[in-house]
């Protein structure tokens, strides 16, 4: 049966509301938690020695996801019905699951098994997988990814980054993967026990540019040999499969699908200024051999590196937008409640104007990301728009993060409030590139 887009969202909502996880958002019952733990370990995926990825069905070329065919004729900022429903679901998830978990994840330097499992209940990956592979997508939708990223980041920037890592891998495969690659890997992101995947893009060098990789891929007899170091890889310790970007000698930047059990593939946990909850890792590739079909976009698909980078910028920008929106909401509430000199501090222009500017820049950030994403969604050129959006977001996110601490004064600096965490996280906006893909 061919489902409508609303039907797909309903299906996901349904899955979500009947999930045992939902009750935990209210009062935590120890008993329920125990049952839940049991269920979870049953479905948890361990590190396997052999590839778990097998093609179950065939993906015909005509079933591949493409951009929407009919561009809208009017300027419009309203969400579609499906987008509104998706957002409502994510608003609750962010507020009830991610925000309360943010501090813990930051201190633990990782997302918890529990939250990762709960996020999989949301089935977000389905929105990027073709129907022919039992996903829920009828078209490639960078905009949907951006809206998801924004809402999740309202809960927590780092956790959102972790949760978007598998979706980014799926997006990259839907966009650039051959039909055979999609048929092999994407089904693992549809079922109950979803696979964990991520992208390995950045490198620990000064003046790192997204077009100049020091990690190399060399063509060998029956595949490729990868050498180099990748850094700031979200969910790096947990991922079973990676999209590793490398310079293919004689060709240029290319993506390679690498499974974590590959020989010479070493993952090291990584600490940073503020992305603890993203579970960052550094990846060392020491002459890792991958088969010929590991090259992303083999055969029929023309790999487009610029597009991957630009869609990455949009996902990362959306994280900044969401976190900034959270910061603005927080300082409004705090400022209205905090009394100094006999009245709320928001009665002072120095405070009020700062908040006004934070809200204005956040709104501008959001509009710039939406414009670039909607252009991408319509199949229009969007490189300049994405680049400008990223430049703008990176700068203003930093200022907004700083001001959120400033407005709370000493209270903003201590860990009792989330502002110091936002400060640390939002600084990452300018540093990150290619870690995700919309």
């Amino acid at each position, binding site marked *: 049966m061919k489902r409508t887009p609303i039907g797909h969202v309903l299906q996901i909502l349904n899955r979500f509301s009947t999930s045992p996880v939902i009750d935990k958002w209210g009062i935590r019952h120890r008993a329920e938690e125990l049952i839940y733990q049991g269920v979870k370990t049953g479905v948890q995926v361990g590190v396997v020695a052999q590839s778990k990825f097998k093609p179950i069905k065939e993906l015909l070329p005509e079933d591949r996801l493409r951009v929407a065919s009919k*561009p809208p004729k*009017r300027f*419009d900022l309203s969400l579609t019905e499906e987008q509104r429903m998706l957002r409502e679901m994510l608003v609750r998830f962010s507020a009830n699951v991610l925000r309360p978990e943010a501090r813990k994840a930051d201190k633990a330097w990782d997302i918890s098994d529990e939250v990762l499992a709960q996020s999989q209940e949301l089935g977000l990956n389905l929105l990027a997988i073709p129907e022919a592979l039992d996903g829920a997508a009828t078209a490639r939708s960078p905009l949907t990814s951006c809206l998801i990223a924004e809402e999740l980041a309202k809960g927590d920037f780092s956790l959102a980054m972790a949760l978007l890592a598998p979706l980014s891998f799926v997006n990259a495969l839907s966009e650039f993967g051959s039909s055979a690659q999609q048929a092999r890997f994407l089904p693992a992101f549809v079922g109950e026990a979803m696979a964990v995947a991520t992208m390995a893009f950045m490198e620990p060098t000064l003046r790192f540019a997204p077009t100049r990789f020091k990690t190399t891929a060399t063509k060998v007899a029956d595949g490729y040999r990868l050498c180099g170091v990748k850094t700031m890889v979200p969910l790096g310790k947990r991922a079973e499969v990676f999209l590793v970007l490398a310079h293919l000698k004689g060709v240029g930047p290319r993506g390679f699908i690498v499974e974590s059990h590959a020989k010479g593939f070493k993952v090291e946990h990584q600490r940073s200024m503020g992305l603890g909850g993203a579970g960052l890792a550094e990846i060392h590739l020491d002459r890792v051999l991958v088969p010929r079909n590991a090259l992303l976009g083999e055969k029929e698909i023309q790999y487009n590196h*610029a597009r991957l980078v630009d869609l990455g910028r949009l996902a990362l920008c959306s994280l900044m937008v969401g976190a900034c929106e959270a910061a603005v909401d927080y300082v409004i509430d705090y400022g209205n409640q905090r009394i100094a000199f006999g009245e709320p501090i928001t*009665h002072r222009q120095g405070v009020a*104007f700062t908040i006004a*500017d934070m*809200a204005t820049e956040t709104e501008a950030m959001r509009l710039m990301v939406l414009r670039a994403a*909607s252009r991408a969604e319509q199949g229009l050129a969007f490189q300049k728009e994405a680049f400008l959006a990223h430049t703008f977001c990176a700068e203003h996110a930093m200022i907004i993060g700083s001001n959120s601490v400033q407005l709370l004064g000493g209270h903003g600096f201590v860990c009792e409030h989330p502002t110091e965490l936002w400060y640390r996280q939002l600084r990452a906006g300018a540093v990150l590139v290619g870690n995700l893909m919309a």
Partner: protein
Amino acid sequence: MINLEIPPRLKGMIHLASEVAESMLRPISRKYDTHEHTYPVELDVFGKILQGMEDGGQGVGASHISKKEENDAGEKCVKNGKNMLAVLTLFEMAWGDLGLTLTIPGQGLGNSAIAAVASAEQKARFSGKWAAMAITEPGAGSDSSNISTTAVLDGETWVLNGEKIFVTCGERADLTVVWATTDKSKGKVGIKSFVVEKGTPGFSVERVEDKMGIRASDTVSLILRDCRIPKNNLLGKPEVKEDQGFAGAMQTFDNTRPVVAAMAIGVAKASLDLTKDFFAREGIEPDYRGSVWDQGAIEAEIIRMEAELEASRLLTLKAAWMADNGQPNSKEASMAKAKAGRVGTKISLRCVELCGAIGYGETELLEKWARDIKITDIFEGTQQIQQLIIARRLLRKSSKELH
């Protein structure tokens, strides 16, 4: 369905505006900057054309505006109407010349006020006339509820007394919409607007200001000394009630703030376009691929200016889109105005710096644009007044609490 592209059906009008800007305004831009207070006769023709279009239809480009709220398939959809068209065409016009744009015959701020609040009889009586707006006084600027010009009813006439400053087109316009209080003790509720015709005894131009920029547009101070006008020249209703008069008049500013934002964006874009053009000839062009830090300082600054300008443009379009679709947009209109005035001024000033002596000298228009644009950060409510409006909305504060 989210889409932030210019609607195809408005492109014809935008193109027309850009042609007017390029072939009509630009060529006389420097002339009327140098000859301040000289009336730009070249604009008379254009004013006639616009008026003809308005008399023939329902305003500029009315035929291009989507009035129906349904698309071709009959589904309900959003409107891209007169507010969006206004900002989109103003981007172009202000790019041509802001001072001249402000002094197009028949397109005064008073005309907007008449269109918004006048009765049918008044609209007919004042039709085809150029109307200025007089609000500010020597002792009341941003606090326009504190004006002290008085209006006293004497039989069938209102008697006006007071002094008004910063009146755009105050000398050139046929009419001036004057804000005055009918009862100072009632505060802003007592403030009403009155139409005063040019040549009315007791109504005189005190002086024409010499200004830093927008010199093509005259700014005057007016004196009202026992100025008698007909009773029915009061716009709107005479009763002193809440939610009328002042509040209503202030609401019209919700629609004009995105318009001023559009002016800032047009001028800033003029500065940026020329600066980019100059540097491109030297082989200096920004690259939108790698990192902003991988480029020269000039390229990086151009990128930042483009980003800030685009941010302002989108905020402005959003405010206009909300107005077209009947959504309250006071906060968004102020966001657009605050941001565009702020970054527009910064961009035009930075372009002067980047171009050095070429930017600062009078051979090019860069220095002029940097002088012109500052007004957009001030009139129709300064940046700080916009911040107040935004903050009050966000924080849910009254003007008593946050002032």
